[in-house]
């Protein structure tokens, strides 16, 4: 039997609201991508029948719209949590404004992507590259909400979608908005593939329990990394 006895500390990284956001997001993005793809290219599996027997395509669109509203408010909530949550969920993790973050981005590329060195990455929450990629996905979220609600506004009297109606004249018409919305959908699909792989990869390499951390919230972090983090925090607060 192989076993390890190394000094580890359990760290509570992802608070419950963050985990809830993550899984609602995963669910509605899956739903949005599937229904969105079907709306873009519907299978014509019914023939020789009359319209009054069915409403399946209308239902698909309904699911898409409901998911979109969930997605939007879930994202609004996460943005709010980025200002009140714990240090790992704060907004400043996601925007690389400090040189330290850029240094770590380069390190992550060297260690994880190019695999030219075997140095470990210290970050307890997201590493700097992951955070930056999430920031880009947040921008895609915003564009997807704007374009989606912009198209939805034409068939709605609700207040919220009307707020985004300006995107249609801005891009020149519904055709352009629709095309952008469709292209961005592929951004979500590609992100999801890479995201799931990288979570498994990091769990495999680092063995910090990153996969289950999004369920329970706790990660296993090497003691020295926790100590480095604490002393850094202390130094910062003294400043």
């Amino acid at each position: 039997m192989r076993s390890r006895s190394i000094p580890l500390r359990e760290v509570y990284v992802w608070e419950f609201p963050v985990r809830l956001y993550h899984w609602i997001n995963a669910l509605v993005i899956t739903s949005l991508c599937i229904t969105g793809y079907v709306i873009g290219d519907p299978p014509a599996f019914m023939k020789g029948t009359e319209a009054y027997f069915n409403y399946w395509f209308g239902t698909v669109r309904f699911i898409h719209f409901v998911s979109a509203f969930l997605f939007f408010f879930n994202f609004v909530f996460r943005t709010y949590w980025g200002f009140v949550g714990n240090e790992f969920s704060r907004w400043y993790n996601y925007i690389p404004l400090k040189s330290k973050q850029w240094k770590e981005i380069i390190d992550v590329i060297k260690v994880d992507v190019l695999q030219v060195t075997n140095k470990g990455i210290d970050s307890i929450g997201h590493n700097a590259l992951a955070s930056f990629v999430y920031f880009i996905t947040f921008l895609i979220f915003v564009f997807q909400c704007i374009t989606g609600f912009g198209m939805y506004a034409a068939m709605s009297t609700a207040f919220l979608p009307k707020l985004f109606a300006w995107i249609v004249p801005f891009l020149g018409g519904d055709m352009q908005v629709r095309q952008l919305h469709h292209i961005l959908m592929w951004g979500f699909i590609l992100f999801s593939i890479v995201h799931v792989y990288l979570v498994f990869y990091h769990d495999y390499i680092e063995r910090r329990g990153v996969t289950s951390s999004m369920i329970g919230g706790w990660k296993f972090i090497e003691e020295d990394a926790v100590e480095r983090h604490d002393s850094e925090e202390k130094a910062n607060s003294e400043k």
Partner: protein
Amino acid sequence: MYLHLRPIELFNTDFMKEKQPTFYEEVIDGGLSRKDFLKFCTTMAAFLGLETSGVGQIVHALETKPRLPVIWFHFQECTCCSESFIRASHPIVANIVLDKISLDYQETLMAASGVQAENAYKAVMEKFPGEYIVMVEGSIPTENEAYCCIGGRSAYQILEEAAKNAKAVVAWGNCASAGCVQAASPNPTGAKPVHKVISGKPIINVQGCPPIADVMAGVVVHLLTFDRIPQLDELGRPKAFYSRRVHDTCYRRANFDAGLFVESFDDEGAKRGYCLYKMGCKGPVTYNSCGIIKWNDGISYPIQSGHPCIGCSEAGFWDNGPFYRHLPNVEGFGIETTADKIGLGLGVATAVGIAGHAIVTNIRKHRDISNTPNVDSETLKEL
């Protein structure tokens, strides 16, 4: 009926000094009955979405107000807007354009030519500053203004001069509203719509390639009746006619919601009148009145005739082709490349990349994975 031209008037600009006849007088002079006139007013009120009292307002306006002085320019275009207008089934709609709105200058229809024609439109600008309406068919070249010249002057110069003292500018059709086919990639003449060339004037974009005749008439009647431009959407189109999608007013909509689609033009679904969404119908992204007012006296419109909507009342509809596929081409990736094909390609590339990365991980990071350096001291001794 509409060959009611008055060449003498057009040649002799003195007529403008006289009292302008009202629209109603013109209609009765033209041999139509008051009943026809009232029918027309009622139809227009319905098209404009007015309440019942609006009919009275239109009747009153057309009975009392003098004709609208209009200068109608043809720039880079095919004249299909004029053609659409003169093919309007209702006699009065046709009459509006031919002589009832005092069409003092219209390159296609006027009898005058050369100097007389030029004088006619200059006379309008002098006699009715701030009152005349400039109506434009066609786009304006900006790459080199010489691509479109009339009477030795460029389209841009003509329009700039005419629009300066105009009450409003009406941009007929997709060319004048969004550039249409001339502005399609690569846009060799640098064609631009009216609203990109002229500023500081109310501009009405009456979209479509061509616009529906009744819509054109409705815009004119609105200008005449209310002395102001109709309510416009964000793209400058009159809301009365362009606030709803062809898709939302389509009689085939039930088939869309039921998921019943035509898959080829000769299949069972086409015979049954299923939704043309998969045949590239642009109805869901097109704002127009085709589904309600229809064409040729309400006989039919493209979708009713079994053809998908090509989105001719939307900017850039040529570049969002092909007409017979729902998803447009992605520019820069060659013909027949859709976002889905690119996405799928990237997806496969990503999967291959991941597989490669996983293999390299297991080779390069073998020590990391088995964590040899991290095992405790006793195990190390055993090793």
